[in-house]
């Protein structure tokens, strides 16, 4: 399981975490990606990085399904605190409560966070 708690663009972690998720999927691992806290910002639509002159990697989240990464979890409380709804997101996600997410975490073999 890959846990993403950081906003995109301000630091490189979101971008490099996405690379690991894709590589992990290529290894036929049972991959799940979690977005909570500021990590939910990674999935916001309409990101346009031309002004800051960096790569717009947000489109790559749409490719996750092609790599059979279909377990994308997002925490409800994190979304609500940031004034966002599912309609604001780039990809379909499974929305979980904090306790549901805690349960999923506890079932993992490996958790990577960046």
């Amino acid at each position: 399981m890959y846990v993403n708690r950081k906003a995109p663009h301000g630091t490189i972690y979101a971008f490099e975490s996405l690379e690991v998720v894709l590589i992990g999927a290529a290894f036929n691992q049972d991959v799940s990606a979690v977005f909570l806290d500021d990590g939910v910002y990674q999935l916001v639509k309409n990101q346009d990085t031309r002004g800051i002159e960096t790569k717009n990697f947000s489109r790559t989240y749409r490719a996750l399904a092609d790599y059979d990464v279909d377990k994308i979890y997002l925490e409800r409380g994190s979304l609500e605190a940031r004034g966002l709804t599912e309609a604001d997101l780039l990809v379909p996600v499974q929305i979980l409560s904090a306790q549901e997410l805690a349960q999923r975490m506890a079932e993992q073999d490996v958790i990577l966070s960046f």
Partner: protein
Amino acid sequence: MMLHTINKSPFERNALKSCLEHVTEGAAVLLIEDGVYGAMKGTHFTSQVEKAMAKVHVYALRQDIEARGIQDKILDGVGLVDYGGFVDLVAEHSPVIAWL
């Protein structure tokens, strides 16, 4: 009059909160990088920024807002500037403090 810059999300770090506790009347606060999330409406932090706007001028960097896809969710009254506008704010204010 002072210029305060903040480059961190108000949800992850205490930089914006601490900044708003140390501004004097009429100062300018510029949100850049992940700091622009502090300029969004409808968040758990919005009311604190709205309250501060009675006392200080709040600006946010347009390029950082667009990079994060939140261009339609910015609080009314937040002034949008580009990098040139950032330079102008620095030229017009003194001292400048970065809340790292």
